[in-house]
């Protein structure tokens, strides 16, 4: 059973629910408009102007590459893509897809016996749907003349990992730094823990798979 995972995830959700500011009543006082009465109605036909829509850029898409340490199977190159939607300046949702080829366990290397997994089963592929919070907005300074907007963010989500011929319910907990190189290109440094229960080596155990990546994304 994935009980520990679920407890972890639900406690995260509970923290989000409690920490969210309660703005329900704060915004209900309407601003009293004091309009001056108009004495003469001007007989001017106002020209209809249809301004072109403002370019709204709340989506962020891109690719990442880095290293994934697969528990018992060594570290491998991982790469993948991410798509995020920014709801507010603080909160975003993110879908991540990543893949890596697992290495060999120490046992396989030392004993020289038959391999535990086929090549296809050694492919580690995961996706997750996460909610992210830009906790520390700020600026990154390069030299004395250049300042780039940045944010340190935390993500919590759930997804699925296919490894060793089986799909595993996965909790993804991450933190990262996003630096805006210009108005629409962002550089990411991201660390993420993919936790799932696995019985690949004969016994159920919770595995933690740490991933460190470098990514580039574009806002559109």
């Amino acid at each position: 059973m994935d009980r520990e995972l679920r407890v972890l995830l639900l406690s995260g959700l509970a923290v989000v629910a409690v920490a969210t500011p309660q703005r329900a009543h704060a915004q209900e006082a309407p601003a009293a408009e004091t309009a001056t009465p108009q004495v003469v109605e001007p007989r001017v036909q106002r020209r209809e102007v249809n301004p072109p829509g403002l370019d709204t850029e709340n989506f962020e898409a891109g690719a990442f590459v880095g290293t994934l340490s697969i528990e018992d199977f060594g570290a491998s190159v991982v790469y993948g893509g991410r798509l995020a939607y920014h709801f507010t300046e603080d909160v975003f949702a993110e879908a991540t897809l990543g893949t890596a080829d697992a290495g060999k366990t120490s046992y396989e290397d030392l004993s020289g016996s038959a391999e535990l997994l086929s090549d296809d089963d050694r492919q580690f592929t995961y996706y997750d749907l996460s909610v992210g919070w830009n906790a520390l907005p700020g600026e990154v300074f390069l030299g004395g003349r250049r300042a780039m907007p940045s944010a340190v963010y935390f993500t919590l989500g759930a997804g699925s990992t296919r490894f060793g011929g089986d799909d595993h319910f996965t909790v993804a907990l991450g933190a990262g730094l996003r630096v805006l190189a210009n108005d629409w290109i962002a550089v990411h440094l991201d660390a993420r823990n993919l936790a799932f229960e696995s019985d690949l080596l004969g016994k159920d155990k919770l595995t933690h798979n740490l991933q460190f990546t470098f990514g580039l994304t574009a806002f559109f």
Partner: protein
Amino acid sequence: MRRTGPIYRLRLASCLLLGVLAAGAVHAASSMQAVVQDPFLELRTGPGRGFPVTQVVDRGAEVNLLRRRTDWIKVRGTNGVEGWVHRSQLERTLTPAGAQLALPGPSPESRTGHRWELGVATGDLEGASVVRAQGAYLLTPSLLVRADVAQLLGNSSDGWLGTLGIAHVFMPQWRVSPFVGIGGGGLHVEPEATLVQPEDRSDTVAYAGLGLRGYLTDRFMLQAEYREFVVFTSRDDNEEIDEWTVSFVYFF
């Protein structure tokens, strides 16, 4: 030849990164003009309240609106200064023709006036973990058409569940409101290959459910739901399964 070497991977990854850059290169910001009506506009270095104010634009000056990200709009003044301004400061600006600028955003009214909902959910379906993406369209503030797709991850079997249904929210104007829903869909189950009968099954399902939903802010909701499914199997007896989920919903 099987192309899975690390060098091939790095090449593929760098192609992906280049693709991102190329996609952005064709990306040109549109422009729209406005006249400042507030005493002044505060221009920040980035799209958020955490970024410092480095410039101001005075009342009566014209600004170009370049792009928008969440509630922040990037503007350029006639003297060339650029920065990000919050939507609330621009609400009183006028177009050059003197009309009010339209910059839609959230308000307490959007709680009962919204049309769409998107969410992610997780939970438990008869012992299997659920990862779900869901959407809803509101016909009226209290009547929803809902659709969702879930991946099921269990110990002895995995699967997919997709449903379409309707739901009724009793008190959409309340901060927390109960709701009920019914619907139907399809369930596909793949038992693990190590079991005796590794036979995939696809069945039709119907459900009835009830839950609670509460507004966190003017854009987000938290929703908890219990659904009881009837699985119309090809055997003599139908099967009944329970699902518990918690979802995080964005509405607009």
